[in-house]
């Protein structure tokens, strides 16, 4: 971005840089972050509908696509209630702290090719640090609401996020060791377009680290099965119980937008980021578009997986959540860290054949999974006309009522 301003203005001062930063920030926040968070709610509701043999929102706009806008406008117009006994300044500030922690991550997140707001040299460290701000906001909301459900939710969230930062961080270390950089663009540059040049398939330890990171990131984002801070059946709505209107909207925007952040980090660290197989040096516009598309699809696939997991697994108990983190994820993450270090000593230039072998293993696992899906379909005894591969289908299953 600095080069962009230097090219535009002859003798740039800090005012030019500040102005450019505000404009870019506005474009990214209002043109990408907020729509992505909103559209994810629509995706979630449509996928949830099909998983539960329902349709989901389908009246507002084509296939119900404008539902997120309608819900957003409705929330903005609703009354903003601050409880009498609440600690008003903290109560009002909390959603903005959560939102800052979430939007702050986009500063260092790549979007594809040269598209990045600031390629910080501490990139991934900055992202893990700034997303931790979310827990401060959630704890603030829980404390200031003067409501026992909110307080319990806030405390649970603090315990959960602090615990799961450790396996998440330990799973980032192997990648940092392999790439020798913290900057997001450098980590991507160390990988290639082909799957066997991605860090996930670099060695068996990074393959496991990928799953540990994804699970820990879901827990940090308060997603089911780790949505203990909200826990509708126990805590009404947890830390957001007393919130209404726009402030409530900000909490939920951060939660759904966080899914994309998780997906983008996973795509950057493990899945080759925006790398495409063709150089296309003389066609900058299609190249950047292709890189953006690749990165977006890789990221959004994991948003879909998170949604899919939410409608598959029930919420785990608090003690199970802690056991899973401290007894399973943390030790295995440490083993991964040491294993990667040993691997790098043994094979300084990468083990020949191992990435390809891991790719084949992953493909076999995927094939076994698809066979299991087919087994469940045949066991249900479904006929051809009862299936529809169109995820937006509204046509009813025939022969009922």
């Amino acid at each position, binding site marked *: 971005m600095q080069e962009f301003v230097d090219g535009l203005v002859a003798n740039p001062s800090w005012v030019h840089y500040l102005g450019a930063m505000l404009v870019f920030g506005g474009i990214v926040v209002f043109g990408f972050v907020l729509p992505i968070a909103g559209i994810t709610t629509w995706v979630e509701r449509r996928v949830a509908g*099909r998983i*539960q043999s329902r349709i989901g929102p389908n009246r507002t706009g084509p296939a119900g696509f404008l539902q997120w806008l309608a819900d957003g406008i409705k929330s903005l117009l609703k009354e903003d209630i601050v409880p009498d006994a609440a600690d008003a300044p903290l109560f009002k500030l909390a959603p903005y702290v959560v939102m800052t922690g979430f939007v702050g991550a986009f500063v260092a997140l790549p979007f594809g090719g040269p598209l990045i707001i600031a390629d910080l040299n501490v990139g991934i460290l900055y992202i893990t640090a700034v997303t931790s701000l979310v827990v401060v906001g959630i704890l603030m909301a829980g404390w200031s609401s003067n409501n026992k459900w909110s307080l319990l939710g806030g405390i649970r969230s603090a315990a959960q996020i602090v615990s799961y930062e450790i396996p998440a961080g330990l799973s980032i270390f192997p990648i940092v060791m392999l790439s020798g950089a913290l900057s997001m663009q450098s980590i991507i540059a160390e990988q290639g377009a082909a799957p066997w040049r991605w860090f996930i398939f670099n060695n068996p330890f990074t393959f496991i680290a990928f799953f540990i990171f994804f699970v820990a990131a879901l827990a940090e984002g308060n997603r089911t099965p780790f949505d203990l801070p909200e826990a509708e059946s126990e805590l009404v709505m947890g830390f957001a119980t007393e919130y209404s209107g726009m402030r409530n909207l900000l909490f939920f925007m951060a939660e759904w937008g966080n899914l994309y952040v998780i997906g983008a980090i996973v795509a950057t660290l493990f899945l080759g980021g925006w790398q495409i197989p063709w150089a296309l040096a003389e066609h900058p516009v299609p190249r950047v578009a292709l890189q953006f598309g690749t990165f977006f699809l890789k990221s959004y696939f994991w948003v879909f997986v998170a949604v*899919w*997991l939410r409608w598959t697994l029930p919420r785990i108990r608090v003690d199970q959540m802690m056991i899973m983190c401290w007894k399973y994820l943390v030790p295995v993450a440490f083993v991964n860290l040491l294993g990667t270090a040993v691997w790098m000593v043994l094979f300084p230039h990468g083990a020949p054949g191992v990435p390809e072998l891991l790719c084949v293993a992953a493909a076999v696992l995927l094939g076994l999974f698809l066979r299991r899906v087919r087994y469940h379909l045949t066991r249900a005894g479904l006929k051809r006309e009862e299936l529809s591969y169109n*995820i937006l289908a*509204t046509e*009813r299953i025939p022969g009922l009522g």
Partner: protein
Amino acid sequence: MGLGTYLRNIKDAALTIADGMAVTASHLVRKPYTVQYPDRLPEGVRVQDTLPFRYRGMLEVDLEICTACLACERACPIDCIVIDATKDKAAGGFVMTRFDIDMAKCMYCGLCSEPCPTGSIHHTPEFEGADYSLESMVRKFVKAPVLAYKPKKGGETDPEIAPILERGMRYVGEFASAEGGGGEE
């Protein structure tokens, strides 16, 4: 906890989560069950016709087979049924001058249809009961004073009343018995 248990726990977690996700993925490719009431139903289909026989919709009274026994009025926990019936020697039985059900109060519990000896009062699949005033939600079944029904020995012979009574007795069988309505007949 031994190392074997530890590793087995990890294996079990991975396999059961994968199997659960396979189940939900198999649901993703099935067509939905949703009936898109009210405006996107298939041609010529009323959603009321697709509801099961025991559906507890708005109450209906078949005055032709009502015996004026007042069992439903007594059974109603919120007194939304009002019946006026007087003995009339000249007419030869009870004459009903009023049979009102306040659907605004009714909570669709079905306790009135259980004691009904003939199945005269029963739920229908009709549920579109919205109206503009509370008064118009009182359903008045007696238009003019009517003689209560008397069960005849040896079964009903009147060809007009017989099918109504037959249907009423089906409601008695379905609603008033614990095992009723268990499935297809």
